[in-house]
């Protein structure tokens, strides 16, 4: 079955993906940090029994202890699980749909972390799917909930709706113009947070950022989503304007085609070099300078992360072996 990210989606020149996450806990059991392995397994079995009794034919159930380190890290690279969860073993499990668009982390920080991913900007659609799954679970399970402070979560920062909506954006032009610090400040005043989606710090790999809502108590899901959407659309139009300026400069145009030349011909590609060049090429493709489908580029960004290469290739155990495979795969994809 083809994966969710093989799609371009709305605002696809700038927006890579949308994600909705809901945190839920069962009233009867202590939160995972206060629960032993037998208790966690019980919680997981309970949730599994509900999920698989209804609509579960499409889901697979993966115990984290059965995954290799590489497989677990690869799931985190694809943003299907959190890095914290990748480190978990006994007592944690993942429920994953065949197209990987729906993932449910069991006994992460909360009993349930349900996430739905969609290509492009699709906040309402992703929320709708998450909401329906949540309601299906709610019909059978007794959630930890309080009228006054909403869904009860291990960390009080998630109380209320316990919903995080995030949008992943490619912002090479705004980054290039040195606008990201200013934007991050503005955005944080609006109750949102922005940060690198791959790697840390102020200059994230591939100029890919993730913007999410920060406040969850006292604001409905619909309002939080509408706020996020309006900020994302503003960022999108600012990025388009900045990119249109940038490509008028012959030096920048040259850079785009040189980057494509390297990606089409290199015999070795490290993660860092790949992310730097693919970002430049994606800018060119998004603005119509280069005729490569955006979804092909998006798929490469997902599949060329190191652990994901290693998980799919038995002979890619170390970085230099991966660099060979990465260069070959990218070359073939861009022919």
């Amino acid at each position, binding site marked *: 079955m083809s994966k969710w990210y093989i799609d371009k989606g709305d605002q696809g020149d700038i927006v890579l993906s949308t994600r909705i*996450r809901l945190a839920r806990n069962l009233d009867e059991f202590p939160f995972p*940090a206060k629960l032993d392995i037998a208790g966690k397994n019980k919680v997981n079995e309970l949730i599994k029994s509900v999920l698989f009794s209804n609509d579960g034919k499409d889901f697979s159930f993966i115990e984290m202890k059965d995954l290799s380190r590489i497989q677990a890290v690869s799931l985190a690279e694809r943003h299907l699980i959190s890095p914290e969860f990748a480190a978990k073993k006994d007592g944690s499990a993942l429920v994953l749909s065949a197209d990987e668009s729906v993932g449910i982390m069991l006994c992460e920080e909360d009993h349930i972390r349900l996430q739905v991913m969609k290509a492009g900007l699709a906040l309402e659609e992703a929320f709708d799917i998450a909401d329906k799954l949540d309601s299906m679970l709610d019909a059978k399970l007794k959630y930890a909930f*309080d009228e006054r402070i*909403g869904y009860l979560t291990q960390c*009080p920062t*998630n109380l209320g709706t316990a919903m995080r909506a995030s949008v992943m954006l490619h912002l090479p032009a705004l980054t290039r113009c040195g606008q990201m610090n200013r934007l991050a400040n503005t955005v944080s005043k609006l109750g949102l947070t922005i940060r690198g989606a791959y790697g840390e710090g102020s200059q994230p790999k591939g100029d890919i950022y993730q913007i*999410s809502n920060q406040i969850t108590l006292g*604001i409905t899901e619909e309002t939080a989503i509408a706020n996020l959407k309006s900020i994302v659309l503003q960022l999108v139009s600012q990025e388009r304007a900045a990119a249109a300026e940038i490509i008028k400069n012959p030096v920048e145009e040259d850079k785009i085609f040189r980057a494509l030349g390297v990606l089409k011909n290199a015999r070795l590609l490290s993660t860092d070099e790949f992310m730097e060049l693919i970002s430049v090429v994606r800018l060119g493709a998004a603005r119509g300078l280069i005729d490569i489908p955006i979804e092909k580029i998006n798929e490469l960004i997902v599949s060329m992360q190191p652990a994901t290469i290693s998980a799919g290739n038995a002979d890619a155990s170390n970085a230099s072996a991966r660099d060979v495979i990465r260069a070959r795969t990218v070359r073939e994809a861009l022919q």
Partner: protein
Amino acid sequence: MLCQNCGKNEATTHIKQIINGDMAESHLCSDCAAHLGYSDVFSGFGLNLSELFGGFLGDMMPSITSGKTQRCPKCGTSFDEIAHSGKVGCADCYRTFYDKLLPSIQRIHGKIKHSGKTVSAAPEQPKIETKEEKIEKLKAAMNDAVAKQDFENAAKIRDEIKALEGGENK
């Protein structure tokens, strides 16, 4: 340990990250963590907010150190432990320490009135037995059968236990 970003302040925030195909942990002070955008546990980078939140609650510590320690009846967590770790033990902790937690919740979110989705009426939750509990139950049934000298049945139950202990989950 000093903060890996500024090298000046004590690192209080530990962030698990995926770097070059492997798991890595960064150690940051709370200022740098906030500055670098790691101020939220939820969207994938696994910031442990407990220190920040613990700091919030820390302000009120003196008022609660006197007298006998109150503990959550379900999970046994005390308010001190929540204040230090920033982690709440279970749903009943919120009920037990509601008034004490409220000021911090208000400082984090600004508001303290939930609006949005609510839960359905309490459903009849299915019961789940762990393997250990199943085995426990079967053993009791086997002893019962032996006591009644129903050895055929006892042998059958013994085989079931063996199958369960043999790692077959279902």
